[in-house]
């Protein structure tokens, strides 16, 4: 693999992460190799505790890897963060309860020092995009879990990032809401040109959303297989009816079993 640090998209090369603790050291990641082409959608799937979140945190500059290199749009995670090139969506929406929906979405822009009219304008657009335009004056507790997560997505998109890092964003929701939000995400993604790294532990979700599924083993976390998903875009409610879909699900499942056997 040629080393092209000028490539856009996401890249992890030989990434390892070791945590020191009283109870003994934990090797969370080791030798992780991953590449997400620009504009691509890659899911990372693996058993709980395999280090998926650690990898995402490394990309979003919340962690420093012990070894290896990461690049986001050709820059280091720290540089990318400074340049506001990525947005992050966590598993819990993490909305500030004392702010309205609108003000939650304007939060990143406020921190960046963007002027008020522009902030509000952008927030309106983002909320429109996720379909919550009529809820701008509401408070988080007045919204359901799925709606809160949509606000979190709008907030992540407000800085117009070219990369979106999502850590099991729909993990806390029921399956029906999850399916609906998957469709939503596909629609939203269709209007942007973002590169997305998506962590999940739902096989069907991974196959439905991505163009590439990275299967991860645990302890230490390592990408064991990369499965290309060449189902046609845009993905919709009929995608799930296609036989190829289920073949891919089976393939991913097998890879997962292999990965967990390997530990």
């Amino acid at each position, binding site marked *: 693999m040629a080393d092209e640090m000028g490539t856009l998209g996401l890249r992890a090369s030989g990434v390892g992460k070791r945590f020191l603790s009283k109870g003994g050291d934990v090797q969370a990641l080791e030798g992780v190799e991953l590449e997400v082409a620009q504009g691509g959608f890659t899911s990372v799937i693996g058993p709980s505790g395999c280090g998926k979140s650690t990898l995402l945190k490394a990309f979003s500059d919340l962690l420093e890897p012990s070894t290896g290199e990461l690049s986001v749009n050709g820059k280091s995670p720290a540089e990318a*963060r400074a340049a*506001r090139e990525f947005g992050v969506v966590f598993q819990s929406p993490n909305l500030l309860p004392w702010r309205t929906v609108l003000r939650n979405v304007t939060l990143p822009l406020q921190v960046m020092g963007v002027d008020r009219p522009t902030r509000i304008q952008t927030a309106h657009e983002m909320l429109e995009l996720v379909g919550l335009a009529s809820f701008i004056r509401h408070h988080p507790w007045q919204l359901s879990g799925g709606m809160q997560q949509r606000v979190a997505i709008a907030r992540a998109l407000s800085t117009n990032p070219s990369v979106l890092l999502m850590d099991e964003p729909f993990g806390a929701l029921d399956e029906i809401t999850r399916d609906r939000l998957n469709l939503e995400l596909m629609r939203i993604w269709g209007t942007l040109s973002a590169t997305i790294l998506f962590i999940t532990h739902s096989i069907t979700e991974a196959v439905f959303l991505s163009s590439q599924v990275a299967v991860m083993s645990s302890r230490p976390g390592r990408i064991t297989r990369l499965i290309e998903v060449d189902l046609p875009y*845009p993905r919709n409610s009929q995608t799930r009816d296609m036989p190829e879909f289920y073949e891919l699900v089976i393939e991913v499942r097998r890879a997962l079993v292999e990965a967990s056997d390997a530990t």
Partner: protein
Amino acid sequence: MSSAESGPVLTVSDEFSDVVSPGGQRFWSAVQRVLIALLLLLIAGALWELAKLITGTGDRTMPHIWHTLRFLGSTTSQDENYTWFLVQNVWSTAKASLVGLLVGTALGLTTGVLIARNRLFGDGLMPLIVAAQAVPIVAIAPALVLWLGTGGVTKMVITTYLTFFPVTVATARGIQSVPQESHDLLRTYGASKWTSLRILEIPFAAPLIFVGLETAAAFSVVGAIVAELPFGSNEGLGVVILTSWQFYIVEPRALYCVAMASCALGAIFVLSVRLAAYFALGPRSQGEVL
């Protein structure tokens, strides 16, 4: 949802949990609570009279309620209305309490933030602060007077001392309980420490801080009264309490009146803080105002 379309359907869900009760309902429940509070006062009065009846205690020890209330209308040796006399002293004490409360709060907030943010500072200082709360004020007060003399400064130091600790502890604990994920979130936006404090930590800790403020408010009144004792000043509730106590044999009702006035002042301070919390926090305030 759609069936034949090729693209995903834009669904705006109307799952909308109605948690906020309409304004009118909240007003009525507040009125209810006030009525219950008054009712309880009446019951307490009735129990007092009942106890008096049963034990046959004389009027010297347990004056009748209505006698005590009537006393409020009598005139003092200075030819003033007694109630007016009480009010003036209450006001004097209240002023001192307020100053102490404000200073103590300012110091407490600052210290609390420092403790919560700086690991070393916090681990070292917090146990000391929690321990210092156990020192009774009347032990410190004489020592303070011996050191700083009798005057406004001592009064302020005493009230500030009492209000400082609850506010510090509440602020520190509140900020320490901000979940790591929220910090991470602000980190990804590159927020500075000051921004993070303003936008995240203080609003998050606000409910807890207000609880600490309630305690501080009550303590500030206690502190002001304590500071007015013999070596303090010549006006204020502390002074009135002592003189009423000394002259109890002559006029028992005065003591009860001033005791009630003191409790009332404390309650007013606490309720004011609660009211402030209600307006500042909205539905996030702990429990209701009353």
